[in-house]
C-alpha cells in the first residue's frame, strides 16, 4: 500500500504526458486526487502499521496528519483544475498536469520517508515539480518568480543536505555506525556529538525553513505566490509548506531526544516571532492582494514553528493550526485566483467591488480573510487560541503579548487590502473581461470554507486523538 500511495500519482502523471487531448487531460487530476484520498482514508482507518523498505518508509502519527491534509487539499483543488484550465484553452497544459501529479507523489514520499536522505531527495523533487507550475503564465514576471523560486529553493535545500550530513557525522563522531534513518537517530540521540548536532539543526532549519518560507529566507514567496495560478498557490501554501514543516519536525524530534530541547526551542520561538513580525510589516499597505496572501503564509508558518517551540499544549495547537491554515489557504488562494481572472489585475488600485462583480468569490475571499486572521467560528481561531493558551500556561507572557500584538497588526493590515478589494463599485476595467463565477470554480472554494468553519465548531474525536498521538510521538521523553 505504501508504494501505491507514492506510485499511483506518478503513474497518472505519466498518463497525463501521453493523453493527447488538452481538454480531457485535466480530469486526470481529480481522478488522482480521489484515488489518493481513498487510499489515504483506508490507510488511516485500518490501523495496522504501514511501512516498507526496511524502515525507510513508514507512516507515523505526524505523517498521518500531513498525509491526510495534503490528500484532502489536493483532491479539492483537483476538482477546481479542469474548470480553471478550461478558461485557458490557448495554453498547452500537458506539463502543468504532469507536474501537478508528480508534486502529489513527491509530497507523499516526503511524508512517508523515514530516511533523511530520501526525504531530502523528495523535497528537492517537489521544488523541481513546482517550478514549471509557476511558469504557467509564460510572462516576464512569472519567469522572474520561477527563477527566484528555483534558485533560492535549491540553495536552501543544498544547505539542508549539508545539515543532514552533519547529523550523520555527529553519530560517527560518537563512535557509532553513521546512519540517516530517523528511528535509529532518535534512539541514539543522547550519544550524538553536541557541537555537530547544534550546527546540523541550524543548517537544517535554514535549509528547510527556506522551503517553508520562514523569514528571513522567505523572499521567494511573495513573487512565487503572486505570479502562480491560484490553484498552485493553494497547493504550495497548504501542501508543500506543510511537508517542509514536517521535515523540520523530524530534526526537532531528534533534538528533543538528545536531549537538547532548550537549544532547539529557543531558536524556533525566535524565528517564529520574527517571521510573524516581518510578515506583518509587509502586509500593512500591501497593494497586491496575491502578494498579501504570500505574507499571510509567512506569518502562519511563523505561528507553526512558534507553537512547536513553546511545546505542550501550544504544540498541539500548532499541529491543529497546520490543518486549519492549510484548508483556509485553499479558500483564499482560489477566491483570489477567480478575482484576479475577473479583473485582469491583482492590484487594489484596479480591483474594487469584487462582492458585486463576483457574488460568490468576493464573499468567500472576505470570509477567508476573517477566518485566517482568527475570527470565530473559523478553525484558525481555535488553533491560534490554543497556542496562546499554551504560551500563557507555560509562563511565556512576553511571547504571548508579542503574538497578540502581531495578530492585531496583521488583522488591520490585511483587512485594509481585502476590504478595498471586495467593497465599492466595480471599476469600468472589470467589465472588459468575460469571466463570471461558475459552479465548477466556486464549489471547491465553498467546500474548503465549509471544512474550515466545521473545524472551528466541531473537531471530530478521531482528529483529536490523532493530534494527541502526534504530539506524544514528537515530544519523546529522553
Amino acid at each position, binding site marked *: 500500500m505504501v508504494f501505491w500511495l507514492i506510485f499511483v500519482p506518478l503513474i497518472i502523471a505519466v498518463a497525463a504526458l501521453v493523453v493527447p487531448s488538452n481538454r480531457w487531460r485535466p480530469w486526470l487530476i481529480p481522478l488522482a486526487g480521489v484515488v489518493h484520498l481513498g487510499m489515504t482514508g483506508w490507510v488511516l482507518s485500518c490501523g495496522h502499521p504501514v511501512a516498507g523498505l526496511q524502515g525507510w518508509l513508514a507512516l507515523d502519527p505526524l505523517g498521518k496528519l500531513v498525509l491526510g491534509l495534503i490528500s484532502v487539499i489536493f483532491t479539492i483543488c483537483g476538482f477546481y483544475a479542469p474548470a480553471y484550465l478550461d478558461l485557458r484553452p490557448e495554453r498547452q497544459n500537458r506539463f502543468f498536469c504532469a507536474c501537478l501529479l508528480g508534486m502529489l507523489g513527491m509530497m507523499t514520499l516526503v511524508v512517508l520517508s523515514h530516511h533523511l*536522505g530520501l526525504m531530502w531527495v523528495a523535497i528537492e523533487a517537489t521544488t523541481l515539480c513546482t517550478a514549471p507550475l509557476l511558469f504557467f503564465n509564460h510572462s516576464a514576471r512569472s519567469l522572474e518568480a520561477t527563477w527566484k523560486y528555483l534558485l533560492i529553493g535549491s540553495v536552501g535545500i543544498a544547505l539542508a543536505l549539508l545539515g543532514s550530513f552533519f547529523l550523520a557525522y555527529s553519530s560517527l*563522531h560518537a563512535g557509532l555506525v553513521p546512519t*540517516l534513518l530517523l528511528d535509529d537517530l532518535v534512539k541514539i540521540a543522547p550519544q550524538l556529538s553536541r557541537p555537530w548536532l547544534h550546527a546540523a539543526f541550524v543548517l537544517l532549519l535554514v535549509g528547510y525553513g527556506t522551503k517553508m518560507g520562514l523569514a528571513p529566507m522567505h523572499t521567494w514567496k511573495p513573487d512565487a505566490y503572486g505570479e502562480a495560478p491560484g490553484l498552485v498557490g493553494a497547493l504550495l501554501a497548504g501542501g508543500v509548506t506543510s511537508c517542509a514543516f514536517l521535515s523540520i519536525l523530524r530534526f526537532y524530534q531528534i533534538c528533543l531526544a538528545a536531549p537538547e530541547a532548550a537549544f532547539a526551542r529557543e531558536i524556533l520561538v525566535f524565528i517564529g516571532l520574527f517571521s510573524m513580525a516581518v510578515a506583518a510589516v509587509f502586509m500593512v499597505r500591501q497593494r497586491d492582494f496575491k502578494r498579501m496572501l504570500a505574507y499571510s503564509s509567512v506569518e502562519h508558518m511563523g505561528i507553526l514553528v512558534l507553537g512547536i517551540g513553546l511545546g505542550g499544549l501550544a504544540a498541539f495547537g500548532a499541529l491543529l493550526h497546520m490543518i486549519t491554515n492549510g484548508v483556509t489557504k485553499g479558500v483564499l488562494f482560489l477566491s483570489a485566483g477567480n478575482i484576479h481572472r475577473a479583473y485582469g489585475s491583482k492590484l487594489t488600485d484596479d480591483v474594487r467591488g469584487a462582492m458585486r462583480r463576483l457574488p460568490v468569490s468576493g464573499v468567500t475571499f472576505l470570509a477567508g480573510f476573517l477566518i485566517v486572521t482568527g475570527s470565530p467560528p473559523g478553525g484558525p481561531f481555535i488553533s491560534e487560541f490554543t497556542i496562546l493558551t499554551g504560551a500563557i500556561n507555560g509562563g511565556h507572557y512576553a511571547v504571548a503579548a508579542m503574538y497578540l500584538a502581531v495578530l492585531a497588526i496583521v488583522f488591520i493590515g490585511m483587512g485594509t487590502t481585502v476590504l478595498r478589494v471586495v467593497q465599492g463599485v466595480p471599476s469600468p476595467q472589470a467589465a472588459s473581461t468575460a469571466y463570471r463565477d461558475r459552479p465548477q470554480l466556486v464549489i471547491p472554494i465553498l467546500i474548503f470554507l465549509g471544512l474550515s468553519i466545521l473545524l472551528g465548531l466541531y473537531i471530530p474525536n478521531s482528529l483529536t486523538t490523532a493530534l494527541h498521538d502526534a504530539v506524544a510521538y514528537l515530544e519523546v521523553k529522553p
Partner: protein
Amino acid sequence: MKDFIDPILVVVLLLNFVALGASRLRTLIQAVAVQGILLGFMIVMAHGSFMIWVALMAGATVALKGVVIPRMLFHAVREVVIRREVEPIVGFVASLFLGAVGTALALLFSKTLPIAHDHMSSLVVPASLSTVLTGFLILTTRSKAITQVVGYLILENGVFIFGLLLMEAIPFLVELGVLLDLFVAIFVMGIIIHKISREFSSVSTNMLSELKE
C-alpha cells in the same frame, strides 16, 4: 590511497580561487568541471577498497559534474549569451579577498568542531565549508543567470566533499537520487535561462527586478 586526498583537496581549494577570479565564463565553467572530476576520484580514494557501487557512484559523479552539466552550460553560453564576460557586482580582487577570508573562517570554524577519526584527512571539513562559502559568494556577487548556476554547482560540490566522510552512512540509492535531483535542477535552470534570454535579450538577472515591494 587516502594520502592522495589532501593534495587533491588543496587543488579543489585553488580551483575555488580560479573560479572567483575568472573573468571569462569559459574559465569559470572549466574550473567547476575539473572540481567535479576530482570529486569523483576522491570518492574512490575515500572508500579505499574498490567495489562495484563505489565505481558506479564515482563514474556517475564524474560523468554528471565533470562532463554532462559543464557541456550543458557551454551549450547555454554558445546559444544565448551575448557577452562572454562574467560581469561581477563585486570586483575580482575583492572577490578573491573575500574568498580568502571565507577560507580562513572555514579553517577556524572547523577547529571548533571535533573531528572524529584519524584515518581521514583533516582537511575535508574546512575544504568543504570553504567551497560552500565560495559557491555562495559567486551566487550572490555575479549578475548573470549562468554564473549563478555555477555558484550553485560549486556550493553543491562543497556539500559533496563533506559527504566523503560519510561514504558508509549514505546509501547508494540516496546518492544517486541526490545526483539526479541536481541534474534535473540544472536542466530546468537551463530551460529558464533560455527563456530569460528570449524574453529580455540578456541573461543578466538585473533584469529580474520587477517583483519587489
